[in-house]
């Protein structure tokens, strides 16, 4: 190929590359970008994902995220990229490891302990209800109670 043509070809290639990187995402890619964006917390907001924040930083992060989607990076790679820079606190869906495990296991452990305590409590109150009219207590009833019992046993009205 002649010199000038090679230059033109290189220019066209460079131009197509620039256009490709600047062009809009396909609907599937945009959906993927939005889905990932919803799990990335805006670092300068209160609990907002970058998809809902109008801040300059969030918009820049979303643009960065879109570029990574276009580059074919996976969801894990992209969330890992932001977590490596901003820490796990940037993820609205914290990974289930380390101290974060407490977040996920805490409620389960609390529920199990609660059910266990409730079962124990119910069993104790039930057995206590059976024990109430025990021999010792009955022996301690006064004469009035004895009369009442006798009348009830004979079906006589008071």
């Amino acid at each position, binding site marked *: 190929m002649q010199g000038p043509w090679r230059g033109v070809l290189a220019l066209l290639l460079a131009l197509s590359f620039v256009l490709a990187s600047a062009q809009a995402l396909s609907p599937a890619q945009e959906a993927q970008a939005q889905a990932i964006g919803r799990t990335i917390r805006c670092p300068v907001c209160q609990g907002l994902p970058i998809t809902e924040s109008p801040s*300059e930083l969030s918009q820049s*992060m979303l643009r*960065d995220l879109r570029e990574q989607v276009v580059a074919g990076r996976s969801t894990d790679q992209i969330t890992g990229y932001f977590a*490596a*820079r*901003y*820490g796990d606190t940037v993820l609205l869906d914290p990974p289930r490891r380390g101290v974060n495990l407490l977040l996920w296991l805490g409620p389960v452990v609390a529920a199990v302990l609660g059910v266990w305590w409730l079962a124990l409590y119910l069993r104790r109150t039930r057995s206590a209800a059976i024990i109430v009219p025990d021999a*010792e207590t009955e022996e301690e009833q006064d004469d009035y109670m004895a009369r009442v019992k006798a009348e009830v046993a004979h079906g006589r009205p008071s």
Partner: protein
Amino acid sequence: MTTQTESTPKATPVSPLKRFLPPIIAAALVAALGVGLLRGNGGQVGGPLVGKAAPAFALQTLDGGTISLASLKGRPVVLNFWASWCLPCRDEAPILRDLSEKQTATGLAVVGVVFSDKNLKAVRAFTQEYALAYPSLLDPNLNTSIAYGVSGVPETFFIDKEGMVRGYDQGGLTPERLQAGLGKIGVVN
């Protein structure tokens, strides 16, 4: 009647476990809350990037030149993210200026990066007000700021000669905190 009241405590003996468990649980919860609250307070000295390779950058200076991290290879770097609207940045600017006066062509490099500040007039006024002789780089798309995980200025990264992030400071440098950071990249101030 008296016999009934006497029998009550006999029926419900309180075990030590039952007696001390609730206060122990309450104390543990208060301790966890305290640790959680205190941990996030004040300046931070450890960041997610510490121990990792510093992200590369090539940015324009205020004067129109270009500085890249690669061009500083072999030199320890103090990379400071700042903005003209940031008040703590005004407190640390004189500290960084004093530090930059000690830098040499092959030794320590002090570099500023302007974060989320479109007002170039105010940026220039800031550098003139504090007589900042070290270069300040423009990051219009925040690409470098995001690569470094910057969310609020001032934030400072201490990068060693091999290009590894060894120290991080957020919330405004003091002479002591600067000293601590410099120590991590082998610079004696």
